[in-house]
């Protein structure tokens, strides 16, 4: 993926808006005008200090130029372009980069429309499935026909038979009356059924909105980190305190009035604490500020996710966790043990270590259930996780499902040459009751291969850029690897 093509037009547009010539800008940067020209044309990748100097010269923040948001936009446009219905238009990735760079508003509008279209399609399919298979409806139709048959038969008698005795007349009129009442109840039940079906159809998925909300904040909420510090102080939890449960339990009792159940684990206690007082306020502030959450379901879901975030920040305070992570080389199992949380909770916390100036290794996280459904996505700016459908079948997250109990590590190389370390493991969840099937999920952490040697997961792997790696793609529809034995679908666009 050519990100230079994104940054270049932005530099050019901004320079022109400021009325600056290429000569003047390049001179102030200490580079040649022709080099600047190549940069603006998207033909040179720049980063680090040069990007910062350009940003400063143009009066922009670095991430306004090298925006992670645009990269996500490009990934979303690629998914849109891969739709079979658009195949005839021959959309290409270069033009998408142009559109995202020059006209981000229009690009975002296209994405919004794409999502709404997908949601409508899914809703329509769900509704028609429901109509075909819903047991209530099947039974209701049968009842309808039976009740009407009874009414019709008795009504015909009352209407057509002249010599009915008064008793017979009353009898058949009573049948008509009784059956009509039952029919009325049935009609109301049907109306209510359709009323519910209508309101259950939403135009935007809350899960998607919450995913984006977190990605927009780079999975880091400074407001909640502060609130966590405040809560810890209020509960009297010392930094190295091992018995955090009793401190949290006592705090809950003091502020909530009710003692928590005795067996409540540390994380559960922290979740309850997170909702109280300063914590609850901090959560509300974040939700109110979130203009991208457009409906109640999304806001409720976001609040639950943020509560979990705050609880994690209470149980795994930022500075202590970051220090431990560096010391333990980002070993999520060791971190889980050290802080008394689950493997999954430790992995989630790793993803949130993004405080500017005090960052851990940038990780992406993906969680997949036994049917391959992605139940959690925290992508990286340069590692897109598909929103709809599955990712490349070679990814460690799916391989791990085949080896429950084992941690699967993989150096994966994408078609453009980018390499990532993928680490995945099956996590078992308790089944709701004995004869119910086992509930497993596969949890995957991913980081750029350049960071892999800072982690325990890179140990023993050959991380050199020339070493063999598993050739993967983002997902089959947009992947350019022809001749891949694992290909699920034909690619629709030319990269």
């Amino acid at each position, binding site marked *: 993926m050519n990100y230079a093509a994104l940054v270049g037009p932005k530099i050019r547009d901004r320079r022109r808006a400021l009325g600056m010539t290429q000569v003047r800008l390049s001179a102030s940067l200490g580079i040649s005008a022709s080099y600047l020209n190549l940069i603006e044309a998207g033909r040179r990748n720049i980063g680090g200090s040069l990007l910062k100097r350009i940003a400063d010269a143009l009066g922009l923040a670095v991430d306004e130029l090298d925006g992670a948001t645009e990269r996500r936009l490009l990934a979303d446009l690629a998914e849109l372009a891969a739709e079979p219905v658009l195949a005839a238009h021959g959309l290409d990735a270069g033009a998408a980069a142009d559109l995202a760079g020059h006209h981000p508003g229009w690009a975002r509008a296209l994405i919004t429309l794409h999502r709404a279209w997908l949601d409508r399609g899914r809703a329509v399919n769900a509704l028609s499935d429901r109509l075909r298979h819903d047991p209530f409806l099947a039974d209701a139709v*049968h009842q309808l*026909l*039976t009740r*009407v*048959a*009874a*009414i*019709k*038969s*008795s009504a*015909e*008698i009352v209407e057509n*038979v002249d010599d009915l005795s008064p008793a*017979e007349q009353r*009898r*058949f009129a009573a*049948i008509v009356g*009784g*059956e009509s009442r039952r029919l009325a109840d049935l009609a109301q039940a049907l109306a209510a059924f359709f009323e519910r079906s209508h309101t259950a159809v939403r135009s935007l998925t809350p899960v998607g909105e919450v995913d984006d909300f977190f990605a927009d904040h780079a999975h880091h909420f400074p407001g909640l980190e502060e609130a966590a510090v405040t809560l810890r102080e209020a509960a009297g939890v010392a930094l190295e305190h091992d018995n955090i449960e009793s401190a949290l339990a006592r705090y809950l009792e003091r502020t909530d009035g009710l003692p928590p159940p005795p067996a409540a684990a540390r994380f559960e206690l922290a979740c309850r604490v997170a909702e109280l007082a300063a914590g609850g306020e901090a959560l509300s502030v974040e939700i109110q500020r979130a203009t991208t959450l457009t409906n109640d379901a999304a806001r409720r879901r976001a609040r639950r996710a943020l509560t979990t975030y705050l609880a994690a920040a209470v149980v795994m305070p930022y500075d202590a966790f970051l220090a431990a992570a560096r010391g333990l080389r980002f070993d999520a199992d060791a971190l889980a043990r050290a802080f008394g949380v689950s493997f999954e909770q430790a992995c989630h916390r790793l993803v949130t270590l993004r405080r500017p100036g005090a960052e851990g290794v940038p990780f992406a996280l993906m969680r997949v259930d036994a049917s391959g459904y992605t139940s959690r996505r925290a992508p990286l700016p340069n590692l897109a996780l598909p929103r709809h459908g599955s990712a490349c079948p070679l990814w460690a997250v799916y391989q791990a499902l085949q080896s429950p109990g084992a941690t699967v590590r993989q150096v994966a190389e994408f078609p453009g040459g980018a390499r990532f370390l993928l680490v995945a493991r099956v996590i078992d969840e308790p089944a709701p009751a004995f004869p119910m099937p086992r509930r497993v999920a596969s949890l995957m952490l991913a980081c750029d291969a350049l960071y892999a040697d800072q982690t325990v997961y890179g140990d023993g792997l050959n991380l050199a850029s020339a070493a063999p790696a598993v050739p993967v793609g983002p997902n089959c529809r947009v992947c350019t690897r022809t001749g891949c034995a694992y290909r699920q679908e034909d690619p629709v666009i030319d990269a």
Partner: protein
Amino acid sequence: MTIKVLIAEDDANIVESLSFVLGRAGFEVSSALDGDEALHRLHDNRPDVMVLDLMLPKRNGFEVLKAVKADPALRSLPVMVLTAKGQPQDRRLVEQIGVEGFLTKPFSNTDVVEAVRRLAQGLTARDAAERGH
């Protein structure tokens, strides 16, 4: 000789109105409210025509029909199915098993009476043939 009709139907109100109109048309009417009772009646006091609903409790109408057509003593009994389940696949299944008439609910009383009368006439024509003329 009065033609005997057995109505196998679980809705009491439909049994009542149908019994009334069939009785008025000169038939002797009895009824069974579930599939097990229907089969008992067929063996104890064999009718001349059966009106059969498909959605019966205990043993359903499909099973009753199968039992009738599989039993040499009952095979010749004319059966008219009267049902709310009027979809093509139900009709095909019933015709595969073997049936002499098929009406869907809601029905008109005169249609039912006419259909029973036709089945009964078919019976009497057969009776005459069997008496060896």
